[in-house]
């Protein structure tokens, strides 16, 4: 077999392998796509209530509220949550880390976390945190 023929066959094999494994041109665009993490709210609880995401990559949270009452998904550190516990904002959505989810609806928000940390996501509507609407978000390095 000639060198040229082997080269063509080699490229052909590589192309088939790339197509089969999804690597190649697609891999470049997928690398920038957000990681999608669904969160379901049912009976005033988050599912899952523990999530780990990588530092520096966009993450889209798709939050589905199956309850007939409104909820919130507010992610942040202890100081932020302390402010919200006594806050008076009736509705959030101005910041990607503070989302109001009306009854029986879905909301999406995309966040890129800059540094490793451990945060909480909480619903600060009256009584909801005490009822257990609390989750832990771990931002892990090296993602």
């Amino acid at each position, binding site marked *: 077999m000639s060198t040229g023929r082997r080269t063509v066959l080699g490229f052909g094999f590589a192309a088939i392998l790339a197509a089969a494994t999804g690597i190649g041109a697609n891999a470049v665009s997928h690398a920038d796509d957000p990681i999608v993490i669904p969160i379901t709210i*049912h*009976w*005033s609880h988050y599912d899952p209530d523990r999530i780990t995401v990588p530092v520096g990559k966009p993450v889209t949270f798709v939050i589905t509220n199956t*309850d*007939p*009452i*409104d909820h919130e998904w507010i992610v942040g550190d202890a100081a932020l949550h302390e402010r919200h516990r006594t806050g008076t904002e*009736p509705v959030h959505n101005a910041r990607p880390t503070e989302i109001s989810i009306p*009854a*029986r609806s879905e909301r999406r928000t995309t966040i890129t976390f800059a540094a490793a940390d451990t945060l909480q996501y909480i*619903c600060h*509507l*009256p*009584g*909801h945190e*005490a*009822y257990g*609407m609390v989750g832990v978000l771990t931002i892990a390095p090296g993602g």
Partner: protein
Amino acid sequence: MRRTRFHGPDPAGRRGRLALGLSGAALAIFLTATPALACGGLIGPNGAVNLLRTTTFAGYHDGVEHYVTAFQFAGGGGQFGSITPLPGIPTSVVKGGDWTLQRLIRETNPIFAEAAPAASSADRLGAVELMNVKIDALDITVLKGGANDIGQWATAHGFRLPADAPEVLDFYAKRSQIFLAAAFDADAAKARGQQVGDGTPVHITIPTANPWVPLRILGLGKTAAEPVQADVYLLTDHAPALLPAPTGSNGIRLDASESASDGLLTDLRSDRGMDWIPQSGWLTKVAVDGTAGQLDYDLAVDASGAGRPSAVAAGLALPSDPPVQTPVDMSRLLIALAFVGVGLVGVGLIGSSRAGTRPAGS
């Protein structure tokens, strides 16, 4: 135990004396308020509700449950409301008698205790409005629907449901999808001249073969450790069997279980809408004295004398699911048909073989 007794035919004086007895008794199941309208004594700025002790009467006779509860005006203004699950569709919701609850309290309290806007008929959200009634400052709507339907209806009508409402509504809707929503207009009550402490009794008539008294709803909006106190009076033809049994340690306690006195029955019968009271009956008083976390059940009542209260009615078991229609497994069906075929062939062969050996002429 000594019990205070109510004597005398003087309803006016009776009401005056009974008002003292009412001081420990109050309304049912207040849970919500519209954020825009929330104010006054019952509703805090964060939607918290100051519950008073609840007194409820559930009488069961001739297949009909008579549920009497009172909504007490506690001052303030604005609106607040309640949702009560019911075991069936009521045939009527009317103003209750003036002294039924107070008279029951007198019957069982020890002597030392004595010393001391109309809803829209449009169904836009899935819940069906079966009945709209206005009683004094109360707007009452009987609803039919699942947990989400009722929750969304309540939210759309200004009720601010607490965090545990989705779970609690689901708990009830799995057994009965009938609810009674009551919106109390404190401003209207004030305009009517109602004083703080005045109660508006409501009498709900519910044909049902399976009476129960909602207890779990009393803990709605409370944390697990918060206390819940209520008095539930039952009047039944026979001594009832209750589930769960009131042990005291489970959050409910049996305070009285006795043949209803003639005096009590006569007094109750003379109140508005209470002519259904039978000539004899059994009086039971169940005191709810526990925490919201304990009250994860309702009180099922078997008044038939059979002694079999329903675990489903108590919320301890789910209604049996309808038979599941499983798809036919063709391979198993073919194997079964093959066995049947082989069997039939076998029977045929045996039959023909016997026919062949049968003696001629027999």
